[in-house]
């Protein structure tokens, strides 16, 4: 049952309840729906700032952010039945007067139209220092500057200083003109400064040169008084026949005053602007009026009419042709409690359809998680006996393929991820096959045998079990030759950062291990070995401390500050990180980080580039271990990225950004790099390029970290002689990375920076030879503020471990994720659904016998049913024999020919690629195919023979003439490259007899055989009734019998199901155990489990149709009082 407050429970249990309207929330701010904070904000009113945004998959911007010019009109759209029109201002014309001119004013900076002066001379309209001026030298002469803003409706505003304090001799009027057709016809708002200093605001219209009052108005409103130098903000809005002017003395912080009126004399003019007139009698002398900015906005209309907006046939709609099934939808129901209104979620999903029947728009929604699982996935090949094969691993793998994580999401830069949720096989990288897995059971010192790996409950799901209970016995996880995804070097001069994080269980372990004495063999070790004596080992030492050993090729450095994994049988998060470049190492245990920069690491002895063959990592553990993440690159830096145990860092605000598109930089840039016109990483055309330098030269660009910045990232491009001429980035003098050769635009990682320190971008060359453009480029330098605390990981699905095991994952074809999950669920009688929060739940039978699920949540009395309970009890469904049909899988224990070609295949000269399909799925093959010319060997290995004659009677060719390479293979096929360097066509053939295939691929096959397991319960009073079920994922006979037993236990007697309509309680969920009281003497009383709920909300009538299934009582062994026999044998 979903949680709710005590007040809610009291309210829902009361005999009189007041429900609030169910809340249906659809977030239109998703692909194709847009309207962030605007149509969402249904309560926005005139003057409030809102943003209309449409966010599209392709990143097409479509956003207007401004104030509503008037109240939205029409009906609300929250129920999708009405139509509501929002009118926003689009700031289309702007002038900050940032140019200098003796006059006239020239063109607006945004909008580009020209100011037109009237009266006076050009010199009366100068601009300088961000201020435009009008000099009024003459009395009774209006001097003004107008611009054609192209719209009859507009709002424009300006900031200004009046050039006087109070008027002397006569009034001075400041005109604000709108909807002008020419200099004799327009509306105008006047701010009049009287000789008393009072400022009045009023509206006029000028018709054929005559200034007329607007009849509908009070004569004026007083806006306060003016002191010379006061800054005023004035606006003039004219929309339709409604005119409104506002004025506010900003300096005096006085209240804004407004005057409004209506008039319909002008409907066509588009001129707007300002003017000044010294009225008759004024003796102020020349008045210099200063205007600081001019902003004119024209109305934009957004109609939130669902019919128009969503109609698939309306190609004018901004969402036309875009996905329409993505807006999140939530449905909540609630009631008035003692603490006010409280709601409980009933459904979470995403929009599936909006249909447009007559009268209303219908919103259909489905589970978003179900949608996310509509994805084709192809599991990697996993050898169950060797790597472990609990199906929980597969379930979690499928989920993470669809973006749903039950353990922490790997961050960018993660090169390998071993969740160990039932198999040692990694989730990352996908599909590799070279990694070696061993699960060793030691019986004596250094004597072991390989076993099928064991797994136990881990911190998130299952975890690999290992142990070292005595010095002569142990279970040890060993994963060697670990393949990693593509990325930067593991250990080289160019790149040598790394980070390992995992969880271990604090099991007790003896000091000495079966593999060696104390301090020689750690309990857990993740090691990367470079050439020679270069290596890094991240460890839990035999003394249980978190330890890092780093050999830089010169000396062995050990960092062991004493973080000790307790002996408490609890799970602990462990992390280690290192950076040779920064001479820094970090250790982490359960939220405590220790680091040092005093190890004296140096990169001098490291190889120039990676020597991959030598340094693939290796992991072993003598403690239960789970969820190992290996990261390189900037993300390996704990100063920059939180430990994965701590969570993900939230996004941060941009402090400064420079894209070099103009010569004014937003950050302090030094050095001799220069702006260069080159197509960059964005739509701009300018970047910063390194200066030309001679051989052995060096050129730097420096950027000072601005105040408030915590990180920096940038784009870079390098075109240089590979391996000799380098681009290097230094943060406060410390090298972060170096790049050489041809590297097209690439975004750097984020680096931690300190305000005031210097970033150096360096290009330097060796003594000879240049290549490419002989330059480095940077662009889009972005400084961001510090982020908040990391957001801890929360599982996105509830997956309880299941017990069925697989022998092999060898799927030749991809299958839909949901279908694959369903196959596993069916084979284990697992309940699979998405809950009211749209969280995927995978709940095997053992979940329902846990104590929490055996605690009843409520009593649904038949007193409260709206209709008689519908009882279904179908004795014809009783079965006492269950046959489970399944595909039994067996994996070869030694190599066989999984592919044997005995048909001659001609190969023309040159290179050919041929794909062969395996007759049965394979889990491994011998990729090294030998070209054989003699046929005496009986070893099963991959072989091929080439002969010049089609029947094999010609000459056998050696590998000097022909070549063969396996380029790709999976469980179902292998693709082989053949190279024929002979003078003519050759044939894949031999005449050595049937024991030698022409082409033989050796490997381990997964042999699938249809099988069945029958479980029968003898019941004397019933003849045998068989139920045949297919278990689409079951691979082992033991699992088939288990499934059969479970089904039999439920079918050997009539299974009661009832449907009952009851008074609504939004907290109810499927899976809840409820107590049913019996009003009618039907003997329904007892515990039932809710299998499904249908909510029926019609106004104040809220009922639920429950499907209930009977469950057996929980009993104690041989305790007749609790009904042992009934509990075992059923009612």
């Amino acid at each position, binding site marked *: 049952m979903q949680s709710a407050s005590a007040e809610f429970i009291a309210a829902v249990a009361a*005999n*009189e*309840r*007041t*429900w*609030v*309207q169910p809340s249906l929330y659809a977030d239109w701010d998703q692909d194709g729906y847009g309207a962030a904070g605007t149509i969402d904000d*249904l*309560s*926005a*009113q*005139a*003057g409030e700032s809102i943003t209309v945004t449409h966010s599209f998959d392709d990143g097409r911007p479509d956003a207007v952010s401004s104030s509503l010019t*008037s*109240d*939205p*009109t*029409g*009906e*609300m759209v*929250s129920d999708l039945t009405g139509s509501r029109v929002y009118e926003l201002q689009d700031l289309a014309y702007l002038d900050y007067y940032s140019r200098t001119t003796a006059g006239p004013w020239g063109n607006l900076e945004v909008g580009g139209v020209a100011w037109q002066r009237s009266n006076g001379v050009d010199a009366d309209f100068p601009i300088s220092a961000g201020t435009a001026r009008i000099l009024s030298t003459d009395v009774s002469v209006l001097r003004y500057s107008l611009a054609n803003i192209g719209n009859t409706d507009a709002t424009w505003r300006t900031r200004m200083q009046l050039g006087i304090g109070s008027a002397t001799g006569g009034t001075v009027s400041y005109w604000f003109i709108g909807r002008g057709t020419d200099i004799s016809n327009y509306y105008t708002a006047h701010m009049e400064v009287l000789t008393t200093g009072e400022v009045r605001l009023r509206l006029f219209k000028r018709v054929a040169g005559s200034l007329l009052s607007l009849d509908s108005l*009070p004569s004026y409103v007083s806006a306060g008084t003016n002191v010379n130098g006061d800054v005023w903000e004035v606006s003039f809005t004219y929309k339709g026949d409604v005119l*409104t002017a*506002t004025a506010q003395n900003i300096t005096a912080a006085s209240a804004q005053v*407004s005057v*409004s009126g209506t008039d319909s004399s002008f409907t066509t003019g588009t001129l707007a602007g300002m003017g000044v007139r010294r009225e008759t009698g004024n003796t102020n002398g020349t008045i210099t009026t200063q205007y600081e900015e001019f902003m004119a906005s024209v109305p934009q209309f957004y109609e939130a009419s669902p019919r128009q907006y969503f109609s698939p046939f309306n190609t004018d709609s901004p969402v036309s042709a875009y996905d329409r099934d993505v807006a999140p939808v939530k449905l909540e129901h609630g009631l*008035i*409690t*003692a*603490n*006010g*209104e409280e709601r409980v979620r009933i459904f979470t999903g995403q929009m599936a359809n909006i249909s447009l029947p007559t009268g209303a728009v219908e919103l259909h929604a489905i589970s978003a998680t179900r949608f996310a699982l509509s994805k084709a996935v192809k599991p990697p090949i996993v050898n169950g006996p060797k790597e472990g094969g609990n199906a929980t691993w597969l379930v979690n793998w499928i989920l993470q393929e669809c973006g749903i994580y039950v353990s922490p999401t790997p961050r960018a830069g993660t090169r390998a991820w071993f969740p160990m949720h039932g198999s040692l096989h990694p989730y990352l990288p996908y599909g590799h096959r070279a990694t070696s897995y061993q699960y060793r059971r030691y019986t004596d010192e250094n004597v072991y045998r390989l076993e099928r790996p064991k797994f136990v409950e881990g911190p998130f799901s299952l975890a690999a079990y290992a142990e070292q209970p005595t010095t002569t016995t142990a279970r040890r996880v060993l994963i060697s030759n670990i393949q990693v995804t593509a990325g930067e070097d593991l250990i080289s001069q160019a790149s040598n950062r790394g980070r390992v994080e995992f969880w271990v269980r604090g099991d007790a372990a003896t000091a000495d291990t079966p593999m060696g004495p104390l301090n020689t063999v750690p309990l857990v070790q993740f090691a990367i070995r470079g050439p020679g004596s270069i290596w890094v080992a991240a460890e839990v030492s035999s003394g249980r401390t978190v330890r890092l050993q780093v050999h830089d090729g010169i000396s062995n450095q050990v960092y062991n500050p004493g973080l000790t994994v307790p002996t408490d049988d609890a799970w602990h998060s462990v992390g280690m990180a290192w950076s040779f470049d920064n001479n820094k190492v970090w250790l982490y245990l359960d939220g405590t980080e220790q680091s040092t920069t005093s190890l004296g690491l140096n990169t001098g002895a490291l190889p120039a580039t990676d020597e991959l063959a030598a340094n693939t990592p290796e992991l072993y553990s003598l403690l239960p271990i789970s969820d190992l993440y290996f990261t390189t690159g900037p993300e390996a830096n704990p100063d920059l990225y939180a430990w994965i145990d701590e969570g993900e860092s939230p996004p941060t605000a941009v402090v400064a950004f420079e894209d070099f598109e103009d010569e004014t930089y937003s950050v302090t840039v030094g050095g001799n790099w220069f702006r260069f016109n080159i197509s960059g990483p964005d739509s701009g055309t300018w970047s910063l390029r390194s200066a030309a330098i001679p051989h052995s030269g060096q050129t730097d660009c420096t950027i000072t970290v601005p105040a408030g910045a915590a990180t920096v990232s940038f784009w870079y491009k390098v075109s240089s002689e590979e391996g000799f001429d380098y681009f290097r980035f230094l943060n406060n003098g410390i090298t972060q990375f170096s790049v050489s050769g041809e590297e097209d635009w690439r975004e750097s990682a984020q680096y931690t920076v300190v305000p005031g320190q210097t970033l150096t971008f360096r290009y330097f060359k060796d003594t000879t030879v240049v290549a490419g453009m002989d330059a480095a480029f940077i662009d889009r330098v972005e400084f961001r503020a510090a982020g908040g605390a990391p957001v801890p990981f929360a599982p996105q699905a509830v997956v309880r471990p299941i017990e069925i095991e697989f022998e092999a994952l060898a799927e030749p074809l991809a299958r839909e994720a949901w279908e694959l999950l369903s196959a596993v669920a069916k084979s284990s009688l697992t309940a699979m659904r998405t809950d009211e929060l749209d969280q995927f739940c995978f709940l095997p039978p053992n979940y329902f016998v846990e104590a929490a699920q055996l605690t009843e949540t409520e009593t649904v*009395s*038949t*007193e*409260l*049913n*709206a209709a008689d309970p519908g009882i279904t009890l179908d004795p014809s469904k009783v079965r006492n024999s269950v046959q489970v049909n399944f595909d039994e899988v067996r994996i070869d224990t030694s190599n066989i020919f999984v592919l044997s070609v005995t048909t001659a295949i001609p190969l023309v000269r040159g290179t050919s690629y041929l794909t062969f399909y395996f007759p049965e799925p394979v889990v491994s093959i011998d990729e090294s195919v030998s070209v054989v010319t003699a046929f005496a060997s009986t070893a099963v290995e991959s072989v091929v023979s080439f002969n010049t004659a089609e029947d094999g009677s010609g000459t056998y060719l050696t590998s000097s003439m022909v070549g063969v390479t396996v380029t790709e293979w999976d469980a179902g096929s292998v693709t082989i490259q053949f190279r024929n360097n002979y003078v003519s066509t050759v044939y894949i053939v031999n005449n050595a007899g049937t024991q030698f295939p022409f082409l033989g691929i050796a490997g381990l096959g997964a042999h699938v055989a249809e099988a069945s397991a029958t479980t029968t319960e003898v019941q004397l009073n019933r003849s045998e009734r068989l139920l045949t079920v297919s278990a689409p994922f079951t691979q082992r006979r033991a699992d088939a019998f288990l499934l059969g037993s479970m089904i039999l236990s439920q079918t050997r007697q009539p299974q009661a199901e009832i449907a009952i309509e009851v*008074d609504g309680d939004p907290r109810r969920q499927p899976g809840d155990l409820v107590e049913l009281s019996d*009003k*009618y003497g039907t003997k329904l009383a007892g515990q039932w489990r809710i299998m499904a709920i249908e909510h029926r909300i*019609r*106004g*104040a*009538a*809220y*009922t639920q149709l429950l499907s209930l299934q009977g469950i057996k009582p929980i009993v104690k062994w041989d305790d007749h009082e609790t009904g042992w026999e009934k509990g075992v044998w059923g009612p």
Partner: protein
Amino acid sequence: MAIVDRIVPDIYFGRPGALETFPWPLGGMQRPYERQVADFLTGSGAHRVNKIVGGSRLFTLNWDNLRYDTYARLEAYVAGHMGTGPFVLLDPSAINLLTVNQSSATSERNSATGFTTSATNHGTPGSNSSSTHIHRAGAPRSLRWEFTVAAATNPLLEVTTVYSGWHGVPVRVGDSYVFSAWVKPDGTVDGSIQVEAKIQWRNAAGATVGSEASGGVQTVTGWTRLVATAAAPVGAVYASCRLVAVGSTITTGASLYVDELQLEVGSAVTDWRPGTGVYPVSILAMGDAAPWASTWRTGPALVLREVVV
């Protein structure tokens, strides 16, 4: 005997800011306050009653006869000559213009829906259930205006609009309105707080018009009725009711309790009556008949439904 100009009040109908005067429907006005209620019959024949919070009135205005000129002004609304609506009906027979939750000081929803403050230092509106702080005998709730941080200079509690397109309760220019509320300090943290009732006038765009009407700052130590009375000035379209306190008289942690809020038409405060709000109305129907004289309409009945969102 004095001549009585008018024995029944007018009603006002139209758009906020452009309300037209119509004669009182002498044929009577039905205005049931309809609330969705469901009766859940249990297995033993008992009943559980479910209600949806809030309700809506269905107005049926019956005129015996109307001159065609008057009728035509109504017909313009019905037929669409005045746009699509929604419109507003100011019904002089409903005294208290505030909503149920507002006039009952949170008793309807047990929450401060319908009240707002702009920031924490303006206090936080909430719902109180302690009878010590409820003015109406037997009522379940009063509004609690709580100051958990140091109060602003003039903390402001505003009674919010019922409809997003409006900026207060629609009013008629020239009519006098009275906003009243009973208030008292908590008496524990603070025994004396200065506060005043105010009415702010707003135009169609929400901008303030004229000056706020105030009943004057009062020092309240026990239940005190605050009253603000003023005529809607030229340009006023809406009235926004508010309580403004003097922050320097409020001890941090203190609360001010408010009950029996009322906005009424008139020049003097009257006893509190339950409010059901002034909501936008949509026209459902209007029926009429033309008698022998074409300049008359017989028995027009205008049917309006409150739009409650």
